[in-house]
């Protein structure tokens, strides 16, 4: 057998192997097999990786990978620029997407599909408005309220709004205009309330009425400078306070617990020397926050300047949120999206060049567990 493999490795024609095969010792026949389907995804920790599949954009995917071993578990089609979100209980996957009747052309249908996260099978769909944002996959463009009742879809025509789905009724119940604002940040303690970052540096907050319409809204004082130091839209919460990173390397925290959003601290990720060297955050999901350990992870690249905000990471810098001090640096693996495991012991990174998931065991001596090729254009990670 070794000789056959060696021959195959050298690219020898199969015919040349025939003699070798004939000389193998006789063995019992293999048993007859039965074809079936894997009933469920076996992985306990699952990494959901949306893939816009830009080369054939009508046909995006959501990959499911085992968070412990990196083993590929299965896939769901996500249509044309579909956004994905796993339900709070982990049992369902929501996909806000659209299809044309002839694949690339014809009648358009926009829907939220609901899939079973264990069997990766379709459950039902809810019609939504064609105003759905046809965006690259980003966290917080599809949001579930903390009480699991509302599913909120980002719209862009390019005027911005959101559409609110009542999951109990399985229907879209309202559209709420959000002029100049983007993303949907749910407030954990207030299931009927969400925030959005706005182009004038404010945070707009909307409180939903029981019918899903906007009962009230507030606009904060300016909280950041979108020209000089824009915030990445990926925010990560501790309670009701969201932490954002900025293009030039600051952390901006915003408290969403009240009716109006308010500033909750700002600090620098970089020293003045590092700032001079152009160390900046970059990517599509450049921030990971492990709440229990108080560790924040940021995908960083050197030599940054205007326009480098989607650059892959050279290093991932690790901070203690309480002291606002950097406590470690780990290899960046060319990451454009990062996340941690629920126990904080593993760091997941999407290697942009290899289109791969890199799993790193954190600790005093971080160790790469493996690099696992996933899809074509992964840009986001959801760990469950």
């Amino acid at each position, binding site marked *: 057998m070794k000789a056959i493999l060696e021959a195959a490795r050298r690219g020898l024609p199969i015919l040349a192997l025939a003699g070798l095969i004939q000389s193998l010792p006789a063995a019992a026949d293999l048993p007859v097999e039965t074809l079936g389907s894997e009933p469920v995804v076996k992985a306990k920790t699952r990494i959901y990786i949306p893939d816009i599949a830009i080369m054939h954009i009508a046909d995006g995917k959501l990959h499911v990978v085992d968070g412990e071993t990196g083993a590929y578990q299965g896939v769901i089609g996500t249509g044309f620029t579909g956004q994905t979100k796993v339900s709070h209980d982990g049992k369902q996957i929501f996909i806000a997407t659209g299809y044309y009747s002839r694949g690339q052309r014809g009648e358009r249908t926009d829907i939220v599909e609901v899939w079973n996260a264990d069997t990766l099978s379709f459950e039902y769909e809810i019609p939504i408005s064609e105003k759905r944002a046809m965006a690259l996959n980003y966290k917080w463009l599809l949001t579930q309220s903390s009480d699991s009742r509302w599913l909120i879809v980002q719209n862009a025509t390019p005027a911005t709004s959101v559409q609110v789905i009542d999951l109990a009724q399985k229907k879209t119940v309202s559209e709420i205009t959000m002029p100049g604002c983007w993303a949907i940040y749910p407030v954990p303690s207030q299931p009927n309330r969400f925030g959005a970052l706005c182009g004038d540096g404010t945070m707009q907050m909307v409180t939903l009425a029981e019918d899903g319409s906007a009962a009230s809204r507030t606009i904060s004082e300016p909280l950041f400078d979108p020209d000089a130091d824009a915030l990445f839209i990926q925010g990560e919460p501790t309670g009701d306070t969201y932490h954002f990173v900025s293009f030039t390397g600051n952390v901006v925290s915003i408290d969403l617990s009240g009716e109006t959003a308010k500033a909750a601290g700002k600090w620098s990720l970089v020293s003045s020397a590092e700032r001079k060297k152009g160390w900046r955050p970059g990517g*599509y999901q450049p921030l990971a926050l492990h709440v229990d350990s108080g560790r924040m992870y940021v995908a960083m690249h050197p030599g*940054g300047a205007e326009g480098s905000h989607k650059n892959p990471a050279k290093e991932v810098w690790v901070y203690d949120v309480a002291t606002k001090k950097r406590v470690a640096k780990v290899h960046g693996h060319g990451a454009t999206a990062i996340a941690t495991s629920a126990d904080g012991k593993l760091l997941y990174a999407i290697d942009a060049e290899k*289109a791969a998931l890199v799993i790193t065991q954190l600790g005093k001596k971080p160790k790469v567990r493996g690099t696992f090729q996933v899809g074509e254009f992964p840009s986001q990670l959801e760990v469950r």
Partner: protein
Amino acid sequence: MLQIIETWIDKMAERRVRSAAQSSSRRSAVAKIGTMMVGGAVLPMLPFDRSGGEAHAGMPAIDDPMKCEYWRNCALDGFLCTCCGGSVTSCPPGAEASKVTWVGTCKNPKDGKDYLVSYNDCCGKVACGRCLCNFNERERPAYRMGVHNDINWCMADKQTMYHCTVSVIVGVA
């Protein structure tokens, strides 16, 4: 056996990727990832110069409309229509120019002036799949929708399928 051969193909592909990776351009800090080869298929990878092999002989990339580093492409994210049967100012046959767009600002190295560049998408046909680029000068998240490129600018058209992107000069900044 299959797994061994797959591993072997992966290793081959890895070597080809390494040899294909190039570092060039005025944006040398970012333009280091080229086209990635896997088992003979060309896959688009992030970021940035992914125009892969469309260069005109002898022409510097910054002057070559078929290269990601062409000066007008300083904030273009998508397939270059110049590689898809169109030009910097025209959509390929059968594709329709988007009704809405966003405008970037790029410096022309020839005259030193900053120009407003309209990055219209061409719409209604399948993704072109050639010369995938990703530059982001002065680009901002979608709370500044007018300078955002991670969205399909065919969104206001009847047929919204994304095909490729042009770079039309619409004024001096």
